[in-house]
């Protein structure tokens, strides 16, 4: 029991030196088209899941680069893999492959 009545707040600062970059490395290797993203947000605008939840593929790209894996883990399962984002991407990023690679990597990590 925490008899203090409070605990030490986690820092919200993003520490690029300490954060885990392995997910970004894995994504670059297994879904290399993800590197073509220019962050236009077309994927997010057309996303069915994004219309109903806070799911945001553009933000996902940013979180991967920052190594914020916990938040990625919380968001990924909201994707319904409908593939509409793949159709609208002006850079030809295989977004569905990207999502599946992330799910696979995090699943293997949790085993």
């Amino acid at each position, binding site marked *: 029991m*925490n008899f*203090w*009545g*409070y*605990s*030490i*707040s*986690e*820092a919200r600062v993003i520490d690029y030196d300490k954060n885990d970059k392995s997910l970004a490395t894995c994504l670059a290797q297994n879904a290399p088209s993800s590197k073509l993203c220019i962050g236009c947000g077309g994927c997010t605008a057309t996303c069915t899941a994004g219309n109903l939840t806070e799911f945001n593929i553009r933000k996902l790209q940013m979180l991967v680069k920052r190594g914020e894996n916990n938040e990625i883990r919380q968001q990924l399962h909201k994707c319904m893999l409908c593939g509409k984002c793949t159709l609208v991407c002006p850079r030809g990023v295989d977004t569905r492959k990207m999502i599946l690679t992330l799910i696979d990597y995090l699943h293997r990590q949790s085993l």
Partner: protein
Amino acid sequence: MELLGKEQIWKEYQKEIADNNYFYARSCIRQTFFPGSEWVYLDILRNKLHKNVIDDPRHTTCTGIGYHSDVVPIETIMTVVARHFALMTEAGYENLTPSCITSFGIYTEILDTWEHHPEIEEKIREYLYKATRREFKKPRNLAHTSDIIYKFRNEIASQILHPLKNIHTGRPLKVVDHIGCHYAKMFPSKGIGGAEFPAVLTGMIEAWGGEPIDYPERRHCCGFGFRNYLVMANRGFSVANSKKKFESMQPYEPDFIVANCPGCAMFLDKWQYTISEMEGITYGANGYGIPVLTYEEMAALVLGYDPWDIGLQMHQVAVEPLLDKMGIPYDPDKKYCNSRGESLGAPKCPTYLKIK
């Protein structure tokens, strides 16, 4: 030529500090948690530096903690401060030297407000007169007590018995300085070195033989922040700030921390115990914490005062490893004794933080 240019720029970061005749304003936190600090400051000023200083027992809190916690209205704190000025005027003094950084910030803020809004000053003068029949002159010089010690650091250096050196290795002690936020972050021109180049404590450290450590989070707040600590729901944020600083300074293996703000000294000292109990982490060598001193205690140690006379037993983090490094003699059996030599009883030992 370049040096002249730098010297010229550095002049802008200096402030005027009175030579003598100080009206002393005590600190709520310092006199509660480090009572020896205020006593030894007055003793050094009177008996080592031979200065005239008055410690008026009618002086009260400035209500700064209440003001910054939104429970004391600004008119109230201004009237309380006006009363302090009135006490100083009645005593025949013009140089105000508060011991507390919060009070220093409050006095500075109020004097600045009155300068820009004389109508507010008139209103406060009226409030004070109606409430107490007192009138006042504004201080001619306002300096924090750390400014005073800084001013006379070389005079103190000439009387040093125990320089800030490790007697076993002969190397200067590595000292982390922490300047209170309200010292110069609100009004940079009112602090030596401004907000960017904190020099008030490093000046003392260098003059007394130590080596200041410039670490990444040097200017980060200790986390006190008044309502951050006072409201329990925010207290985790308060301790997180101190933790950030400890993690940043630990790789430099500092021998001790010195602070000029009473609140910072208290939090940097006591949060080390809290963090150790919550997470089992200690930041000093061999399970000890990093000792935290006030600048008065640092001055007293180098001048040869007895560690227990200046109240170092009041600190949560044990100071004995530092005393051993400096070669300062102390009697472990007298640590928890009163002035008559009677035992006061030893406090309970923390789970992780070594204290003896």
